[in-house]
């Protein structure tokens, strides 16, 4: 089982500090890298150059952008709901940091190793929606409110297939591993795939597919980017945010992508397990591979309409994920 920071460092206060600094640093670097990757990937798909000027292949472009956002004036519109408006960006951002600290990057490294890791990840994921709705409501802008309304409906709906598909894996792990195993523990899920020698995507392909689709919707990515559909709602819930406040939403979006991709890596693609290369390398290769697939989809497909999105979730995804869970349960019982 992985050693956590709390076990490695004597003082608990120091451990927390190291953990927060580590996660924040990793997330910042990750967001900067992902934005650059998104711009390069979209440019490649659209036969453009993408950023080229700042640094080699434009890698420093996102750093320049971040500095620009940091130095920009924070515009506060009139007639807003002040507390909601100001707390919202923070409330969107903090759960993301908390959720990131729960992952096993390697056989031996993890910030925290909790028995209910999976539950916490989804719980923190669900918390972000509160911030989004506060932003939409507090902005005193009809577009922002429409975006927030859509966002709430969408995220609550898509959380159901997301969790149900993850649950099939948990069920399977618990049955296969005997009484000692805990399928909610992310490290144990990865460990089991390593021991068995195959990835769970092979035994749970339907769950993996449902998870991927629902994850796209959870992170508000195209073709489900309805809450911020720029051709209809300008920028959706964050229309009235500028400067660093906007950057926090932006940051949270990319961090969320990273989190759902990490969950997919652990649940379906064997986590850190893989030949030759060290564990963290495999973990990040797989995660970024999934993130790249999400980008690829964004730059290829048009956007669904809101009612189509909801009916797709309730009529197709949820029944299918329940069915998948039932089948898993029966097979697990039989075997």
């Amino acid at each position, binding site marked *: 089982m992985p050693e956590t920071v709390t076990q490695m460092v004597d003082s608990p206060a120091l451990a927390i500090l190291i953990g927060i600094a580590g996660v924040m640093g990793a997330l910042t670097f990750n967001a900067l890298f992902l934005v650059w990757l998104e711009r390069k990937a979209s440019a490649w798909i659209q036969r453009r150059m993408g950023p080229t000027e700042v640094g080699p292949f434009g890698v420093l472009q996102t750093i320049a952008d971040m500095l620009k956002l940091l130095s920009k004036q924070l515009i506060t519109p009139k007639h807003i709901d002040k507390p909601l408006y100001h707390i919202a960006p923070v409330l969107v951002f903090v759960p993301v940091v908390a959720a990131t600290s729960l992952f096993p990057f390697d056989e031996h490294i993890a910030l925290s190793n909790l028995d209910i890791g999976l539950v916490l990840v989804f719980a923190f994921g669900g918390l972000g929606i509160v911030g989004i709705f506060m932003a939409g409501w507090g902005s005193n802008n009809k577009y922002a409110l429409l975006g927030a309304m859509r966002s709430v409906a969408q995220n609550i709906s898509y959380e159901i297939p997301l969790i149900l598909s993850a649950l099939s894996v948990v069920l399977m792990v618990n049955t296969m591993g005997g009484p000692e195993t805990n399928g909610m523990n992310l490290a144990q899920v990865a460990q089991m795939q390593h021991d068995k020698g195959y990835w769970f995507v092979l035994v749970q392909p339907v769950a993996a597919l449902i998870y991927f689709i629902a994850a796209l919707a959870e992170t508000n990515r195209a073709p489900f980017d309805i809450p911020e559909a720029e051709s209809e709602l300008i920028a959706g819930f964050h229309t009235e945010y500028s400067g660093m406040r906007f950057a926090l939403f932006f940051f949270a979006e990319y961090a969320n992508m990273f989190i759902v991709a990490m969950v997919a890596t652990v649940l379906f693609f064997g986590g850190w397990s893989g030949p030759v290369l060290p564990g963290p390398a495999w973990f990040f290769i797989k995660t970024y591979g999934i993130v790249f697939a999400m980008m690829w989809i964004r*730059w290829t497909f048009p956007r669904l309409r*809101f009612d189509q999105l909801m009916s797709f979730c309730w009529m197709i995804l949820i029944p299918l994920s329940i069915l998948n869970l039932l089948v898993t349960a029966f097979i697990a019982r039989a075997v």
Partner: protein
Amino acid sequence: MLEEIRDEGAATGERYVLNMGPQHPSMHGVLRLRLELIGEEIQEAEAVIGYAHRAHEKMAENRTWPMFLPNTSRVDYLSGMIYNLAYCQAVEKMLEIEVPERAEYIRIIAGELNRISSHLLWLGTYVMDIGGLTPFLYAWDDREQVLNILERITGSRLTYSYGRFGGLTMDVDDVFIKQTQVFLERMKGRLVEYDKLVRQNVIFIKRSEGVGIIDAETCRRYGVTGPNLRAAGVAYDVRKDEPYGIYDRFDFEVPTLTTADSLARYDIRIREIEESLKIVGQALRDLPEGPIMPDKPKKKFKPAAGETYFAVEAARGHFGMYLVSDGSETPFKIKLRTPSFSNLAAMPEVLRKTMVADIIAIVGSIDIVLPEIDR
């Protein structure tokens, strides 16, 4: 105005007013839609226009007939060539000027290339309206080829003043013919690519099929023309029904569909690109040698008092020019009948009881150009 709108929203409670445009990132040009909504469903829609009014018709009354020529391509900047040539042809009809054969052929080529570029731009923006960002850049790339070809012979990329009364400013050469042939070849492959990337996409079909139906009866009442009318099953095309120039010499079809939805409008425009490519190919094949201007071009003239009406098929539909002369060097009145104005007029009826997400898609699908509406 703002206060009034706020009050209305407050008074009715559930029903609220949303102003879309004129400053909205994906509204076409400076159109403003005043929407009354319950939730996301539109109860009433009103198009507020006039934000790009430049008084082209009034300008015409203050300058001589030739001086109005550069104005024409600025009315609809996306099919400027067609508008520019239409004005030349209208004046030629008024003055009964003979146009040399070669000029007639080049006019056909330039006009049809312009129509292709306009339809390509529509394709890109329409798919972008429903959220697909990549096809836009592909269409833009193709359009760029047309602009390069036209830039070489006219000197401008968007607002052409290529026509003259009786002919054209510049002749074309072998390079132009070669470039155009290369473009025709290229487009054949590209249309297949668009079919795979856009037309066969499930989400695209879901977003377009049965959305924004403008049936033939509605078209008739509002005077909707162009691809929008042909998508409703009416085979009306000025090039076929009242052939102008030398369009009667070419072999092309007027595609029609009956479903009248956004998907049909997409299909019609793609097939019109194919037909235009056919026309350009035929014109290049038959292009005769000879002069491109009459021996004695008219520079200063005073048309006899009277009126002339001349119509062409612009990229967006029936474009008519009504010229009134009082016998002086300046027009007494030039009335422009622009297609998008009528096409937009049908929108309040079409938008009723649709979703917010479909507004942009439907308004995008009828292909409006705001400066052409406001003039």
